[in-house]
Structures are given as C-alpha cells and as structure tokens.
C-alpha cells in the first residue's frame, strides 16, 4: 500500500457519530465478556464449543473497540480485521446454529445471528465498516 510522505496528522476516529458506534461496541464487549466469564466458571463442560466461541467473540469485540478508538494506520487495519472477523463469525455461527442446533445446545453471542443480543452483533459490523470506510 502506498503512503503519502506527508501523512496527515493522525486524528482519533472517536468523534461525532463514531463515538456512538464505539460506545455500542464497548457495551457489547462488556456484555459478551461478562457472560463468557460466567459461562466458563459455572458451566463450561455443558457446551464447550459454544462457550469457547463466546469467549473468542468477547475478545474480538474488546480488540475492535480499542482499535476504533486508537488512532493511526495500524489500528485502522486492526479495526478492519476484527470487524470483518465479527461479520464472518455472526454469519457463519448464525447459519450453523440453524443447520446444526445440537452444536449450540447453549446459545453464544452469535447464535441465531445474534438474536439474544437484539441482532446488534449482526448490524454493528456493517455500520462499523461503513464508518471505517468514511474515516480513514
């Protein structure tokens, strides 16, 4: 990727409507983390696959939140990677949870396309991508 020698001063993307996006990401990260901690402590053996996914999703949401706040091209790329991962995750797991429900005896964040979280996990990555494209 070609870079301008006169790079513009790195500005945080955390302004304007982007702050709303970030706070929703932060809430989702908090919710997913809290839930996966409870699941692992209390009942990991009941559905190890679903709960491992929950934990992975929680970590990715945390990284995405940080990447959206932090300025600079590296974090910009991290934000793209994590948000793409989320979209792929919610679509894959959402589809699998419909086709192979026995794998998801207990729901994860992404089961049924994030229905347990008001479909926010499905909508948020799309909004995130639009936001990132507009705010390099």
């Amino acid at each position: 990727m070609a870079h301008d020698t006169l790079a513009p001063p790195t500005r945080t993307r955390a302004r304007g409507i982007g702050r709303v996006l970030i706070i929703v990401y932060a809430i989702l990260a908090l919710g997913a983390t809290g839930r996966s901690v409870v699941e692992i402590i209390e009942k990991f053996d009941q559905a190890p696959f679903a709960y491992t996914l929950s934990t992975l999703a929680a970590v990715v949401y945390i990284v995405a939140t940080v990447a959206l706040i932090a300025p600079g091209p590296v974090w910009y790329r991290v934000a793209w990677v994590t948000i793409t991962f989320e979209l792929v995750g919610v679509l894959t797991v959402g589809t699998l949870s419909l086709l192979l429900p026995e794998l998801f005896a207990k729901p994860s964040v992404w089961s049924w396309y994030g229905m347990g979280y008001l479909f926010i996990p499905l909508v948020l990555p799309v909004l995130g991508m639009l936001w990132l494209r507009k705010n390099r």
Partner: protein
Amino acid sequence: MIEWFTIVQVSVAVAAGLLCVILGLSGRKPTDLSMGATALVELLLIIQLVIAIASPAFGNNPSGSLLEFYIYLISAVLLPAAGGFWALIERSRWSTVILGAVCLAVAVMVYRMNVIWFVQGA
C-alpha cells in the same frame, strides 16, 4: 430483587434512553435534562445494588446464578458513569445519543437481572 422496583427501574431507563436518543438526534447537546435523566438511571442502579446486597438477609434469594447477576449489576452501574463521562469529553449532539444508548443498555441489563433472579433456575 424487588419486582415492582425493577419494573419502575426498567421503565425509567427506557424512558430516559428514548428521551436522550430523540434529543440527541434532533441536535441537542447534553443539557441538565438529558444528564439528569442519566443520573436518575444511575441513582436507581445504586439503590438496586443496595437492595441486592440486603435481599438475602430477608430470605429473598435469587433463583439463578448470583455471580451472573452481579456481573450484570456491576457492569450496569459502571455504564452511565463511564458513558456519561466519556460523552462529555466532546460536547456534541452525539454525546446526547450516547447517554441514550447507555440508558437503553441498562434497561436490557436490568431486565436480564430480573430473569436471573426470578425465572432462571426456578
């Protein structure tokens, strides 16, 4: 948990959330009204925390996981404070929308807490 207090709390949080989102989308910066509504949501959460700590002493025990309940409650208590503070670093209409988003999230979390206390495992 006390059921009627929880109903009041969810109602207040939803009302405050919608109010702030509408005010924000119509271009208002945070005012005493939107900040006050968020502060009220926070105050009710702190009362809820006191109720939760005291309840088992009066034989009012959760039917579900107490750990899960407290993770929700502590997260919820932190939200309006953190969201409100962060929103005010930049005073724009989006800050008002953030206050609304935080209040709505609190409403969902208190509803989940209610399910954990009364329904889960019952």
